[in-house]
């Protein structure tokens, strides 16, 4: 794997570490941290801030029986929570969003496909599959869009993104990502609002394709 050159900004890592990032973005940030030691270090440093506040902030008296009740539970048998491992191009958090199954791709035309992992009032997170040299339909978006490359590469007006790189696009960026040659590009993308397409036909299709 080539070295990661596009990292998650500190403000997003802080929001994620403190539990303040919405679910769709959290999937992308958790996936990026799974691939990027530098951002993992930053994440752990932010959690240290959280731990410091846990140590110093206000306490609440607990009921008398709570400790005894807990100590009685220590020997209870339990099932370890299922954890999802990386599979191929997909890091653990993506496998978790896929519930351990391969993505179910839907065609978007021109060989491009998507697989929606979750979509709701907080935004959506999806996998995109873009054949080599192919452009993702020209689009802009209302809020923040996070795109993490899982396979292949893409480039747009702002630079080149390879496996592990994350692109942070705000609403001012009207970009046209084009997949690099070589392996098809697979990206994990999260938005907090549905994407607005710049050209008319995709815009009409937007509610149908949920892109």
């Amino acid at each position: 794997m080539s070295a990661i050159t596009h990292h998650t900004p500190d403000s997003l890592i802080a929001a994620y570490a403190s539990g303040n990032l919405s679910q769709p973005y959290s999937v992308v940030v958790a996936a990026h941290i799974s691939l990027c030691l530098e951002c993992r270090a930053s994440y752990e440093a932010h959690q240290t801030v959280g731990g410091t506040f846990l140590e110093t902030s206000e306490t609440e008296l607990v009921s008398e029986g709570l400790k005894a009740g807990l100590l009685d539970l220590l020997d209870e048998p339990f099932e370890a929570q299922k954890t999802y491992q990386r599979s191929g191009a997909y890091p653990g958090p993506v496998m978790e969003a896929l519930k351990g199954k391969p993505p179910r791709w839907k065609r978007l035309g021109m060989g491009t496909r998507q697989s929606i992992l979750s979509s709701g009032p907080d935004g959506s997170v999806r996998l995109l599959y873009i054949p080599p040299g192919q452009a993702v339909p020209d689009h802009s978006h209302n809020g923040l869009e996070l795109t993490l490359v899982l396979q292949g590469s893409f480039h747009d007006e702002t630079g080149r993104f390879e496996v592990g790189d994350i692109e942070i696009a705000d609403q001012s960026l009207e970009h046209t990502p084009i997949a690099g040659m070589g392996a098809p590009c697979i990206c994990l993308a999260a938005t907090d609002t549905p994407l607005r397409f710049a050209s008319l036909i995709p815009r009409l299709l937007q509610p149908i394709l949920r892109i």
Partner: protein
Amino acid sequence: MLTAYLDTTQIDGRAVLARPNGYSSVTQTNKISDQTAFIIAVRDNRDRAAFAQLFDHFAPRLKGFMMRSGVGSGQAEEIVQEVMLTVWRKAEQFDPNRAQVSTWIYQIARNRKIDVIRKENRPVPEELAEDPANEPDAGQILAVEQEASQLRQALSRLKPDQREMIERAYMGDLSHQQISAQTGVPLGTIKSRIRLGLERLRHELKELR
């Protein structure tokens, strides 16, 4: 009272932890905190007395943490119990060379809070592969503790309103918009502290790979 001191010995230039001596009271200048000693005793010896000590320390803090998000005392205690049970069951995942016990428990509590209170399943990064040879290293543990204490001091030197804002971000439930609008300034103030932590963590994480 459990009081754990560490004997440090230089082997190959590195301070190593002499663990069988966990309960000795040898006078040493290098002393890890009680909390760290307790969690190591839980992790390595399934030590119930040490776990009870951790409970006494953290349960009231965890309950306060949960109640800040608006849950009642009863539900807060249920979550505290689940968090502490996770501490017991997952203790082998705790790596004192990388994190303070408060950091590790914060992470468990925050995840649980999001799962229960926000009714979302929090996405978490993959765990790093465990290095079986990764023994607690007294020098490293002390470095982690020293950095955390410097961080605590840096936070306490903030202006009260800044401190309050960061505390609310990490402990309470500020909206994402409030975070974006507010964290820029105060986080900048403590950034140098975090950066120090980063250097150490980067080094440590590279060794784990």
